[in-house]
């Protein structure tokens, strides 16, 4: 089974109104899409493997970054 990497994609300002079209192109490049967030021009999902370059090369894509995650310390840890 191929490891999938979570990614977040940010659109160019000029393409904010064309998010559906960009999503289609991302899918064509192998991205599995979780969410299309029109208000902020972001598409989230995952790719097979770890190389984001096929996505980054699409016209209208400003940035592709791996998804980070945040983990809180347990509440009885001294600092929150």
């Amino acid at each position, binding site marked *: 089974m191929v490891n999938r990497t*979570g990614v*977040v*994609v*940010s*659109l160019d300002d000029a393409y*904010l109104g064309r998010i559906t079209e960009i999503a289609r192109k991302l899918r064509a490049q192998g991205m599995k899409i*979780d*969410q299309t*967030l*029109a*208000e*902020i*021009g*972001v598409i*989230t999902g995952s790719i097979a493997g770890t190389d984001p370059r096929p996505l980054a090369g699409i016209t209208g894509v*400003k*940035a592709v*970054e791996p*998804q*980070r*995650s*945040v*983990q*809180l*310390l*347990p*509440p009885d840890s*001294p*600092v*929150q």
Partner: protein
Amino acid sequence: MAAIQKATETRIADVHDFPSGMPSPPSGADGVMFPELGVAVVDVRPESTPSLFAAARESSAVHVVEAERVVYSTALRVPVESQSYPRGRRDSYLRGYRDAVNALVDGLAERPDGSSELAAPVMAPARVWDESQVTWGLQATAVTESVYSGRGVKVAVLYTGFDLRHPDFNDRRPTTESFVPGQEVQDIVGHGTHCVGTACGPRQPGVAPRYGVAYSADIFVGKVLDNSGRGTDGQILAGIAWAIRNGCQIISMSLGAGTAVGQPPSTVFENVARRAREQGCLIIAAAGNESMREAGHLAPVGHPANCPSILAVAAVNGDLDVAPFSCAGINPNGGEVDIAGPGVGVHSSWPMPTRYRDLKGTSMATPHVAGIAALLAEAKPGISATDLAALLMTTAKSLPLPARDVGAGLVQAP
């Protein structure tokens, strides 16, 4: 001392050698040494100063050489040589001055048992707050004096959800949504409830003290971290989009991930935050808790607070000192600390049956700033998100601490 005296051709007397009651050095001496202070005050001829500096550089015992300053009282000017000033008053002033210096030296001198004041540094007494009616944080930020309540302002808290059954919020009706697949908004972890409480808690909670800032704001709770306190960028971004879609003016995010020195901010989050501002929404986030200042370790502001368009909040304690864990603005281009909020000993709501809890963290400082942003937004209807950020910073209370640690200072309510 011998090397200095030789280089400058001066004789420096030890203060303990002064004849009693004599404020100036014994005749023949060009200077006085205070052994307990490790300081010598010397009259050096101008042509000897190069030799003085050379000797000082060579001596491992000499730390610094400075020109002697003359200071004046800002409260009272005593014209020592004025003819109109009665001689008796002049003399008693001089005697008082001498006595004060003697008392200082005596106090610092080593006692017969070998102890001295120098071994026990004098610390400013810790500030004592009366928290019977209101938390210290709301007092220190002037919230208690504000006429504003956040009425008409929508504040989104994106965190671990909220205890929808908390009795202090019976008359509020938060708008809620979970962005964690398979989990409801109901707060299991607790932090979300605590931060909603700080930002928007009631003016008169069921049990004193009051702990909330914007008691009339419209509360939007987005659960972006799951019941184990974990969340992905995707969940957080979905929460942000939802808050914007609902017309929230302020987003409070008490969350983040650690960053490395030199690490640039996320382009994706910076774009998001910028677009949020363009749509009237200011994102405020915790600077992070990775520092260990007692050990001399400063950690840089975390993600996503390190984005230029996101307001990064540091934590101060009840003495208005930066908290030891608070991240510092050591990365450029957005990695600055913008402002500080109360972040130690913060009392606020907690899921029932516990009801309240004291916590510390930049997570607690952040909702103080968010709540006060709501007060400012109410005070200035139609204000843009960028102007709101600027107003928070220009009205902050300046602290005697570097901007690296506290940004513009301690947030203040209008």
